[in-house]
């Protein structure tokens, strides 16, 4: 890592609190590192996990997300959903072998100009310590990140996260409240399998492969790979492509 390394950080700031806080920070002449590039969103909950992952893929070394303090959301409950979404995204990052600390969620209110400068400084320092992600020169990492993006794009994780607040704080379809620990376990399992499913799919994009081949490539037991292949086939995302010896070959179909 060279001394003049300057991390690139993407900041999603919510219009009502963090963006106003950043504004106040500037008006009050507090200093913060110029590494952060700010994208304003109306609410922190607008930020889709896909945006975060794609930012990392585009070359961000870290992603900062600023929202209103819990209970202060301009849209009443937006930041609760943000919390769950970001927790899920962090798990996806972990699965993809990227340090989840590269994604940071902070609450900065409109009055906390100084706090904004402090948290951005701290985050920048941490990223500086972790060093560049160097994603563009690392094809394996790109493949893993792509799988994470695919998983975040998929219906299963999105609806789990979307309903997280409802089922843990209000009730599920059966009128029961789900224990948050149970929900975390469910989410963890879902992240793990969705991520690997996408990873399996990514192996079949270029050429037809057998289950055994894929299992070897991504280092996942072949019975598990088989399960993913079956479910992908059911979703019409993978099709048959002849066979090699006794093993059938599969290939990814057009996106769908």
């Amino acid at each position, binding site marked *: 890592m060279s001394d003049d390394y300057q991390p690139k950080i993407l900041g999603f700031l919510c219009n009502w609190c963090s963006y106003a806080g950043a504004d106040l920070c500037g008006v009050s002449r507090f200093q913060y590192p110029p590494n952060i590039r700010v994208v304003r969103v109306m609410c922190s909950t607008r930020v889709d996990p896909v945006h975060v992952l794609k930012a990392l893929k585009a070359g961000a070394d870290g992603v900062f997300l600023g929202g209103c303090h819990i209970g202060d959301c301009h849209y009443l409950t937006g930041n609760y959903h943000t919390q769950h979404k970001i927790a899920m995204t962090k798990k996806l990052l972990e699965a993809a072998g990227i340090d989840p600390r590269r994604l940071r969620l902070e609450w900065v209110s409109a009055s906390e100009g100084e706090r904004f400068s402090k948290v951005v400084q701290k985050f920048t320092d941490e990223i500086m310590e972790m060093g560049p992600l160097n994603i563009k020169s690392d094809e394996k990492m790109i493949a893993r990140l792509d799988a994470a993006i695919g998983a975040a*794009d998929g219906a299963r994780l*999105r609806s789990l996260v*979307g309903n997280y607040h*409802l089922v843990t704080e209000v009730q599920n379809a059966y009128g029961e409240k789900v224990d948050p620990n149970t929900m975390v376990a469910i989410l963890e399992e879902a992240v793990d399998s969705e991520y690997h499913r996408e990873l399996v799919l990514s192996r079949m994009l270029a050429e037809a492969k057998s289950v055994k081949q894929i299992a070897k490539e991504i280092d996942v037991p072949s019975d598990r790979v088989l399960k993913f292949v079956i479910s992908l086939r059911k979703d019409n995302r993978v099709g048959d492509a002849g066979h090699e010896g006794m093993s059938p070959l599969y290939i990814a179909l057009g996106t769908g």
Partner: protein
Amino acid sequence: VEGHIGDFKVGIKSASGSETLEVGTIILAIGAEEYIPHKFYGYDDNEKVVTLADFERMSKKGELKDVKDVAFIQCVGARDQDKTYCSRICCNVAIKAAIHLADKVAAGGGGGEAEAPKAEEPEKTGGRKRRSRRRRDGAGAGSAPSSGGGRANITIFNRTINAYGVHHEINFNTAREKRIKFQKYDLDNLPKISAAGDKVKVEYFAETLGGWRDMTVDMVVLSTPLVNHPEAEGISKLLKIPRGAEGFFLEAHVKLRPVEFATEGVYLAGTCRAPADITEAVIQANAAASRASIPMAIGFVQGEALMSHVNQDICVGCGTCTTVCAFNAIQLNENNKAETITAACKGCGACASVCPQKAITMTHYSDDQLLSEVLACFEEVKE
């Protein structure tokens, strides 16, 4: 309080019952309260130690007939003693009160009767939400030149005098002409107060003389800062408006939108924003009223430019969007497809970012637009 700009429903409970008002805009002018300096200078134990507001009340009631020599202590509880900020108005109020007292004593009467310069008194009225601003008359306490009579021995202990603006500066000079003394103190050497018969002994560190001195006065007046109204927290939650670190309401932008909140249709004026003197409060009230009159004169509210839009061809009717929407602005229609209720949608984007089918687009904040912004942040610039 329910609703939004142009259509607020405000429920007010009072002793005589409750009523609901339908209003278009809300101006907050709940005022502030005086800091009560428990633990400072024996305020709790010694009845000769009063706050500035107490002093003015007593003066008005004519209870200060025998009071001649007074020590004012500024910044009690303010500027890092308990509160961190400078309350701005207390220097000027203390100077005015001192001049007033000096004049009364000079005229031979002891401090009392007649009108006293009024401080920004906390409003304790029940109707804290009102559409029309409330006028207060400026305190034009003119001071007559002293002639004859006795001379009051008045000292204002201060850390620095904040007599900003033209007329406050004039008052400050008038006070000096009337031989009101200004004595500096610092946080390391706070004045000490002790009872001495029915009088009060003040010990203070005189820096120019390099030692402690003392004086005996009839009364000690503590200038304490204004603090936020106790209801401010509740109102902040009720209207979803922010407060600053000191507990005062925080406007949308300190320089560009000084009497408005980020929440549309809610405005503020006076000391609920920050300590202010009467002139300033009146100016703010004028400003807030004119800002509030703009949407009321227009007569209609433009819908949010930012709204969600559901592509019903893709929507599968799972209802995830309806669970995350805090405004009930997206609901399943009779075809079991999600549909945005445009009047209620605030454009936060919660639905778009969880839609499992990615069927929801936010106007002006679509996925494509956001991603383009993100990607542009990391474009390699070719030189």
